[in-house]
């Protein structure tokens, strides 16, 4: 055994090296914890979160044309769209639109399939609920977007 490794072993250089790493990481600027309700994570534009049905901002009409493509694309078959043709405008209009959030895995295939800009997975991530009841979203809830419970005074 040559001298340097031997000395290193006797003086426990390997252990000291490790100790110095943990010691240096104690500094305040290394800390990465986010204190969640106070600090909120940055969510990027492509994030696939809570689904939303978009409405035409000027008229408030739903952009959905009841083409049923999203329901066909969904691997979990959790979207049910029912519509009927309005004889006046000759356009299909939504009768019921449900989205079962409890089974959704946020793969984004529905939004990709949407032929208009109606269905979109938004950047809202606070979707937790206390029971499964509220997890089947109807058209109104989807257009409204999530309303997370806030525990502020």
């Amino acid at each position: 055994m040559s001298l340097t490794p031997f000395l290193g072993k006797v003086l426990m250089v390997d252990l000291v090296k490790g100790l110095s790493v943990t010691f240096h990481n104690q500094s305040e600027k290394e800390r990465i914890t986010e204190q969640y309700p106070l600090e909120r994570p940055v969510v990027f534009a492509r994030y696939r979160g809570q689904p939303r049905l978009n409405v035409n901002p000027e008229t408030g009409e739903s952009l959905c044309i009841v083409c049923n493509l999203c329901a066909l694309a969904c691997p979990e078959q959790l979207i049910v769209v029912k519509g009927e043709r309005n004889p006046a405008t000759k356009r299909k209009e939504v009768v019921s639109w449900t989205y079962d959030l409890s089974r959704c895995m946020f793969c984004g295939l529905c939004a990709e399939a949407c032929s208009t800009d109606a269905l979109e997975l938004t950047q809202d991530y606070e979707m937790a609920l206390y029971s499964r009841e509220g997890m089947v979203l109807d058209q109104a809830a989807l257009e409204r977007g999530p309303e997370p419970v806030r525990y502020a005074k």
Partner: protein
Amino acid sequence: MLESVLNYLKSGVTPGEAGSQLWATIYIVVIVLGVSIAVIAMNWLERKILAHMQIRLGPMRVGPHGLLQPFADALKLLIKEDIIPANADKLVFWSAPVVVTMTAFTTFLVVPFGRTHAVTDMNIGVLFMLGISSLGVLGIIMAGWSSNSNYPLMGSLRSSAQMVSYEVAMGLAIVCAVLMTSLQTGTGTLSMIGIVEAQNAQGTWFIFKFFPLGFLAFVVFAIAMVAETNRAPFDLPEAESELVAGFHTEYSGFRWSLFFLAEYSAMLAVSSIAVTLWLGGWLRPFANTLSGPAWDLAFSLIPGLSFLVMAAGCFLGTIRMPKIVQMRAQVIGLGVFGALLGFVGLVLLLPGVRERVQDIFWFVAKVACFMYLYIWYRGTFPRYRFDQLMKVGWKVLLPIGLGVLILTALVGMRQELHDMLAAVVGGTR
């Protein structure tokens, strides 16, 4: 009444020496309370320091910077359901944590926090501490055996083997220190107070004595004591990744918290031995180089000042906390805590108090360094395997301990040896 109190305070002896039952009781109560508070503080500090090493924040929600977290946990543990497994040996299961806690606390009987701040000055103090602290293993075996479950059994068997092995190395290292007390002054002692006095008389802490012999003995002890208290990297009896929780797997609630209490007080106890034997106990640092009344005064101010610095840290913390409504209670709490620390610091600056208290401060400060080391090790090192642990104990520490012991004896007796050799050589001539 007041007179007797003052008389005792002036006497400068421990309650044991004074033969005062009353004062002994008071001391015991104070020590039990103090150790419990220290364990609570350790709990918080360990979480915080470990978290910071792991680039986390640690507890932040219960109280400012999680200061009340240990209390919240203690409350939770107290009101938890008390579970005794159906197939456990109930009596043994019940008594195991009691044994462990009792032994852990009993060791503090002879720990000298200062010249007069020990319950008694036992003339076999070191032996007493070693003996009692090794009784703790009994409780661990009881816990493991009575749980009637595989993981606790393996944990307790590991623990017993480990503690017994490392006690040997530990004992050798202690003998080195005891040997050093008998040098120069000529009278060896096993009394904890006597050992510190010997260091005072010899003008050096034993860690620096016969460099590097004292240091080596200290290192042997420092490693053995980590193993003795089942802490990382020797925490095999409770290795959570292998044995779930080791010997206390089946324990919950208050019984579990007793194990916790015992573990931390055992850490404090062995650190106290280390401090007493090698780091000059309650003696202030640089007692021989920086001597004189001015230095004495300066060092006696340090306890109070350090509390004031901590208080200032707290106030700084209140300023840096986020200024929002939800955090107001926390800010106020931190401010109050800072004020409390500041008040303690000011009290410690009073002339009457500071002389009596600085011994305790230095002792506690040294023990605190060891506690930090414990946490630091835990944050850094992987865990040894059982056979490797035994190898370190028997094949590394034991020979080093023996060697240091023999060398210490030889170096200490060099004058006598020289004389003897001269006599022999002279005789033959």
